[in-house]
């Protein structure tokens, strides 16, 4: 069987394929053929608009109002729940946060540390001082002071973020001194910023946080 015969055979199936009237196994075989055959792709491209106009040939009815009400109510509810979930995650309302292994410090668990935001608590190999953070504001600028930060993993750095609603605005990156302390000048907080958070990020920082925050300090 020559290539030409094979192509001709598939060409015969293109109208049924475009109409969705080929059995699944035939459809898959035809799709394999289409991947390699420009002639059939071109033919299908030409036929497809004839199929696309078929829905417009039916008598048009106004959709029931109840359909709109139900669909849009579901959509709004799901969007609200998703926003809420994102916000909860950042506020640390979940007890178990997903953290990158680099941040997990062996068996360390991430705990919510009330007024001082988040703290890292070690276990197994001795107690570790909790991370403490304070945000100071002076002349419209924010200054973050942190202590007891663990050494970031590998080349990673720490990055500060402003949380505005459920969005995270990136701020500066910094590395702690050998005693785990750091002071970072964050610049002026965006309007309506509610919190300063700190995450561990690759060198140069990120546009979006790539892991759970280890500091979450409210902006007064």
């Amino acid at each position: 069987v020559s290539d030409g015969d094979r192509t001709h055979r598939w060409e015969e199936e293109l109208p049924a394929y475009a109409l969705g009237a080929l059995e699944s196994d035939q459809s898959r075989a035809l799709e394999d053929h289409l991947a390699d055959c420009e002639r059939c792709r071109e033919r299908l491209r030409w036929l497809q608009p004839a199929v696309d106009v078929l829905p417009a040939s039916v008598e048009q009815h106004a959709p029931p109002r109840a359909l709109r009400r139900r669909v849009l109510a579901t959509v709004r509810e799901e969007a609200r729940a998703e926003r809420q979930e994102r916000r909860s995650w950042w506020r640390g309302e979940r007890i178990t946060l997903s953290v990158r292994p680099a941040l997990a410090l062996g068996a360390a668990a991430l705990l919510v540390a009330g007024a001082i935001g988040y703290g890292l608590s070690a276990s197994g190999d001795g107690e570790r001082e909790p991370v403490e953070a304070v945000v100071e504001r002076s002349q419209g600028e924010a200054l973050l002071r942190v202590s007891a930060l663990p050494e970031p993993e590998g080349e990673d750095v720490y990055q500060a973020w402003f949380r505005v609603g459920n969005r995270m605005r990136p701020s500066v990156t910094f590395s702690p001194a050998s005693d785990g302390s750091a002071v970072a000048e964050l610049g002026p907080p965006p309007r309506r910023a509610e919190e300063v958070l700190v995450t561990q990020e690759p060198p140069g920082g990120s546009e979006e946080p790539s892991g759970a925050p280890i500091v979450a300090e409210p902006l007064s």
Partner: protein
Amino acid sequence: MTRGKFERLADEDLMPLVNGKDPDAFAVFFDRHAGAAYSLAYRIVGDRATAEEVSQEAFLSIWRSGARFDRARGSVRSWLLGVVRNRAIDTLRRAAGRGPRLDADDEAALVARPAPELTEAEALRRETSREVRGALEALPREQSRVLELAYFGGFSQSEIAKMLEMPLGTVKGRMRLGLEKIRANLAEGVS
């Protein structure tokens, strides 16, 4: 962004916002296409309650799946109506105990379809329902019949051959001639 701004966006520019889970963008998308979606579902399933259910499922599946629309593959409306058609045919086949559907999933038609030329897309937008109905009605009955059984009935070409008691080759030929005539009429509309 306000609803008014969304309304000024073309479908292709609205979809990334729907993808980003913006309910106002989705409302504009819904209002633009719900009539066509519901009408197609009704034509296929034949009763209002089921048509409503099918339309609801199709719209919500697009909302939940993140609207995997690829603008290189054709218009948003054709894509949505493909999703509606697949679901309606599924419902029909299940109700009739006709076995599995023909298309693998909602994305099947989109994955396989090549991008139409711009002039064609423009021609499709200009088509009115009446003109297209005219194009279908202008076909010889034996050709429009196989197209309707395939597209609106969800029958495979083999099933149609059995149903109409004719050779498979005849069904293929009628499908080809029918589509070629509609296509040729569209091409005239472009020029």
